[in-house]
């Protein structure tokens, strides 16, 4: 994890023993609203750590504070051992942030964007050009380097945006909703990049409203809602909190979703989660046998399942169990999925 530099010498000598991020009681108000309401966070070095929550939960505010872009109203935090409030310049030298909206100059080409950042970090002349080209190649953008960013697709923009955060290998990389608005193929490409970065030893703190994303990428997940951390653990631990033995049912006729939900709710005396777009139902069923019997009863009642399976709860169900409500997703984002 410390062998980031060529000589095998740790990049951040003085901080080797420190966790990547350690935060205590962070609070940020916007007027009367507590956007972040007393969050503690411990992120070990080299980990992908996800902050999961619905829109407006305070994810971005928390991340902006940790990236020195916004001053906490209360609480303390250190990034690789440096004090967030007391030593912002030192923190900035160790971190990189990729915001929710591409922080790129749309009028310039991809290569010029990287060149600009390389020069700001202190690369000169040929070294800056070499660095820009190296990053373009690593992020599959070599062919697009001479196009203006305004002509890039969403996925290309995102990759360039992440590349722009890696001009100098950061100790901690903040990624705010790295795949929001991307199509599934572009999302997979970004995931691959993120895993590659973690393999190279970069600590990554990412926010997401996609439960699948946290599940796929993160070693640990903190679930936040209304500015508070409501749970934290590995994906497995969070699922264990909810219990196992979930029955997932897809219906042939989506018109009968509500009817089926009422039926299963009565049968298992447990809340049923529905997802309208896939005509899917999930409910805690306990054992395979009780699930089997429920399916049989459902068919008997004249409701035809098109598919069903037993499994661990999805993170959707975990979130549901923790907050008593589903994840309120942004409808626009839903459309793009």
């Amino acid at each position, binding site marked *: 994890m410390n062998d980031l530099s060529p000589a095998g010498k740790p990049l951040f000598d003085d901080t080797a023993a420190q966790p990547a991020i350690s935060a205590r009681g962070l609070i940020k108000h916007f007027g009367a609203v507590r956007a972040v309401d007393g969050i503690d966070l411990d992120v070990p070095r080299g980990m992908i750590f996800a902050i999961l929550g619905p829109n407006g939960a305070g994810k971005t505010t928390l991340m902006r504070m940790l990236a020195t872009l916004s001053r906490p109203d209360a609480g303390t935090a250190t990034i690789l051992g440096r004090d967030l409030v007391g030593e912002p310049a030192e923190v900035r030298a160790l971190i990189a942030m990729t915001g929710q909206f591409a922080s790129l100059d749309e009028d310039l080409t991809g290569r010029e964007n990287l060149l600009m950042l390389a020069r700001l970090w*202190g690369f000169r002349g040929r070294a800056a050009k070499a660095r820009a080209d190296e990053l373009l190649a*690593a*992020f599959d953008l070599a062919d697009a380097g001479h196009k203006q960013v305004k002509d890039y697709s969403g996925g290309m923009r995102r990759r360039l945006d992440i590349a722009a955060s890696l001009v100098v290998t950061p100790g901690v990389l903040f990624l705010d909703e790295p795949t929001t608005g991307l199509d599934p193929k572009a999302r997979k490409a970004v995931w*691959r990049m993120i895993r590659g970065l973690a*393999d*190279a030893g970069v600590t990554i703190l990412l926010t997401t409203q996609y439960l699948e994303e946290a599940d796929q990428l993160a070693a640990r997940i903190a679930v936040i809602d209304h500015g508070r951390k409501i749970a934290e653990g590995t994906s497995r631990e969070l699922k264990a909190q909810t219990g196992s033995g979930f029955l997932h049912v897809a219906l042939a006729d989506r018109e009968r979703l509500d009817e089926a939900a009422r039926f299963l709710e009565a049968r298992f005396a447990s809340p049923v989660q529905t997802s309208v777009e896939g005509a899917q139902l999930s409910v805690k069923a306990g054992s395979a046998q009780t699930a089997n019997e429920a399916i049989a009863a459902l068919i008997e009642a004249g409701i035809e399942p098109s598919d069903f399976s037993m499994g661990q709860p999805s993170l959707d169900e975990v979130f549901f169990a923790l907050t008593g409500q589903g994840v309120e997703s942004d409808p626009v984002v839903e459309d793009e999925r």
Partner: protein
Amino acid sequence: MSRTRALAAALHGVERPRRPSALSNALVFAWRAVLKFKHVPEQLFDLVMTPIMFTLLFTFVFGGALAGSTGDYLQFFLPGILVQTVVFNAVYSGMGLSTDLGKGLFDRFRSLPVWPLAPFAGLMVGDMLRHLIAAAIILTIGLILGYRPEEGLVGVLASFALLVAIGFGTGWIFLVLGLLIRTPTTVMTVGFTFLFPVVFASNIMVDPATMPGWLRAFVDINPVSLMTTAMRGLMNGGATVHEIGLALFAPALLTIVLAPTTLWLYMRR
């Protein structure tokens, strides 16, 4: 797999360069401003069309009535329209800043360990270039129409130096507005609402002798009038050190007050 390797290679073995100087940071942002000319050359069209229209309309429509002949009027008007051009153009840089801020580009700059004022220094360099290019185009059109700077090349160079100072001072107003106002078009509306009376209630277009007393009192102390008087002196002859000092007073004051304000607003966001 080779992709993963390329990614790993791009992350490993990166020597952290030495932190560059504030000047070097500012030069990078200036380079960005120059690149904008290459990629968005049409911006110059926005900058020079209004002053060109003003020059043509005022010279040929009002010129004869105001100064006896269009030639005499152009001689009077041209140094002033250069001041107007620079002052109006400063609005566009405020709009540009507001656009950049809206896109999150400045969040990236702020999370970098660079001199905090460097992005603004870069914007300013871009502005100065825009001012010089626009002024050169308008002067060329003036020369074609018959304008003759009596002080020759030296006078023109001196007047352009003064224009740069005027643009620099005025620029801070719109950087502050760009930081305060979220939508670029509002920056433009607010900017022009404030600028129109200041520019028109000056001695750019007409000799204030026929204005009512209360208005003349304002016109006489209006910084735009002071700038125009100095510009006329530098280009047409008869500039005094006193006049140039008065013309520079407002830009200097604006810089002293608004440069720290800009930094404060930027860091506070």
